């Protein structure tokens, strides 16, 4: 008799999985949630790579080229730079987004240049447009470079060392590793993985609780000599298994993004190798039973299947919160975060993707807390399954 409830739990798991895998609508939404994350990530990174490439090969529209043939020649000699005729109305052209930047060479440029007085060159740009910032910055640097090269030549012809006028030598040292820079772009990957877990478990969590009651099959099920705990555990574990499958699939897809995108071009190294893959799974899989039990418990409390589905929609937003916040501002890892289910997983996955995984103890702590939470939720649900008001939805 001792192992019978265990066997009954397995029977429930098998039935719920079989039932759910035949539900085409549920499968479609799971498939959608698995694919949408990686596709969005790939799309956004592709845009980023494009933008980077555009900035490398720039075409600078210049008004008044005839005043500064030497500057134009110098620009043309620089790698990836070409020059075209500027528009008639530069400011309007930039405002309309026709050009990211337009350079205007003033009429008196030639006179002032010849007499070694500062010659005016105007840079027309819109700094409120993030997309054009790299291009503006590039052109500014090119002009500054020309400025200091010509200035140095002038000093040398006057017998002065250019080193004397260079008080500061500016060196920029980037401390973020390439992988960390990639993380800034990829903060929303953990969000999509957690989302896949919630969507993956959703169909069984609602269908086997609120749905089973609404269909009228719950009463017949409860007539079987099965401990309520075995029924509840079976339903939650079945939902958790689907959530786990969703996570494994969406992580696999995400790991394969670099195969389809030339990411080296953008100077970020995005790699989910075997270690990162295992790290993500170690962080995420233990939370699946918790998320599935949470969904099932909420669905059990709902008065109807429809109401349960509404609650699921709200519940899905919850795990996205850390992700949404992380895309706006950086979430600093702090140790208390590991023991908050879902937030902990988010931080762990971020660490793994950033190439600086947290200590194994953080993984163990997060998994233990999730397991405890799941056990507590299953206990609560078992009690709910004994309440007549809930069984018969009065």
């Amino acid at each position, binding site marked *: 008799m001792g192992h019978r409830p265990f066997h*009954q739990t397995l*029977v429930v798991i098998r039935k719920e999985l079989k039932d759910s895998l035949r539900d085409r609508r549920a499968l479609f939404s799971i498939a959608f949630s698995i694919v949408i994350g990686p596709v969005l990530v790939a799309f956004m990174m592709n845009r980023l790579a494009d933008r980077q490439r555009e900035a490398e090969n720039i075409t600078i529209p210049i008004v008044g080229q005839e005043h500064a043939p030497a500057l134009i020649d110098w620009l043309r000699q620089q790698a990836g730079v070409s020059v075209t005729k500027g528009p008639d109305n530069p400011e309007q052209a930039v405002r309309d987004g026709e050009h990211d930047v337009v350079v205007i060479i003033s009429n008196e440029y030639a006179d002032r240049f010849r007499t070694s007085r500062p010659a005016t060159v105007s840079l027309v740009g819109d700094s409120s447009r993030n997309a054009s910032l790299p291009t503006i910055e590039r052109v500014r640097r090119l002009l500054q470079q020309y400025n200091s090269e010509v200035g140095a030549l002038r000093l040398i012809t006057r017998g002065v060392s250019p080193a004397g006028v260079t008080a500061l030598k500016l060196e920029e040292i980037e401390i973020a590793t390439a992988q960390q820079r990639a993380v800034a772009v990829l903060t929303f990957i953990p969000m999509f993985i957690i989302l896949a877990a919630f969507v993956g478990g959703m169909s069984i969590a609602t269908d086997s609780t609120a749905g089973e009651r609404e269909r009228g*099959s719950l*009463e017949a099920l409860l007539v079987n*000599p099965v401990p309520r705990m075995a029924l509840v555990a079976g339903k939650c574990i079945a939902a958790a298994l689907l959530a786990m499958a969703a996570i494994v699939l969406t992580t696999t897809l995400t790991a394969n993004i670099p195969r389809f995108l030339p990411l080296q071009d953008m100077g970020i190294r995005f790699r989910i190798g075997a270690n990162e893959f295992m790290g993500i799974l170690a962080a995420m899989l233990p939370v699946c039973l918790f998320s599935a039990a949470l969904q099932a418990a909420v669905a059990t409390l709902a008065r109807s299947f429809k109401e349960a589905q509404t609650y699921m929609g709200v519940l899905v937003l919850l795990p996205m919160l850390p992700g949404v916040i992380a895309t706006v501002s950086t979430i600093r890892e702090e140790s208390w975060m590991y023991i908050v289910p879902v937030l902990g997983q988010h931080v762990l996955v971020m660490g793994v993707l950033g190439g600086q995984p947290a200590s194994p103890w953080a993984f163990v702590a997060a998994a233990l807390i999730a397991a405890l939470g799941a056990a507590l939720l299953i206990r609560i649900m078992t009690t709910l399954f004994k309440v007549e008001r809930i069984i018969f939805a009065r």
Partner: protein
Amino acid sequence: MIRVEGLKKRFGSVQAVNEVAFEARDGAITGLLGPNGAGKTTTLRMLYGVMKPDAGAIHVDDVDAVAAPQAAQGRLGVLPDGFGLYPRLTAREHIHYFGELHGISGAALRTRTEELLHLLDMSAIADRRTGGFSHGERTKVAIARALVHNPRNVLLDEPTNGLDVMSTRAVRTIVRRLRDSGHCVLFSSHVMQEVSALCDAIVVVARGQVVARGTPDELRVQTGRENLEDAFVALAGAELIEE
């Protein structure tokens, strides 16, 4: 055998079941007859362990069903009120699911399933999903899965409700067969013809109380009416005839 004594259940201000007592013997069909809302379904729900009685005792064979509901459930086969099926599972899978929950598996389960499919004349629909089934076919599936563990006692809550003539006859045949093989069959109905045609003993329930019990003949004598329909009306009040 099922024995019920002093059963009580209250929902808020409504006393749904009040001191209900009766006995259903083995090898006999006992009918629980009463108008809608008389407390038949609530009484049965307490018998099969999904509701707790406020007071009273229930014995299934020799098992105290109030103290040990799961042990009692092992001895009961139940067709609940408004039973539901899983539309994406086949008829055979329904029978297997409940059989496995009862601890039956392997060859024993396959043999028993074939027996039931044959008994209920549903071999042709055994491997179709129940989503498109007619009401009669659905009732058969629900009865089959309730009988998978070959229970000594069978509870049927309004089994012929909404069925056409052919399906009603099929259900009656099954009920008689169960009786003839020694089972204790307790079944509820609000249709007097049904009960009088089928039952060996009748328990008439109205407003949560047992108002009469006996064989159809005894009820006629008790009320002094020749016609059974008149007898029921006299016992249960006017509600019954409005059905």
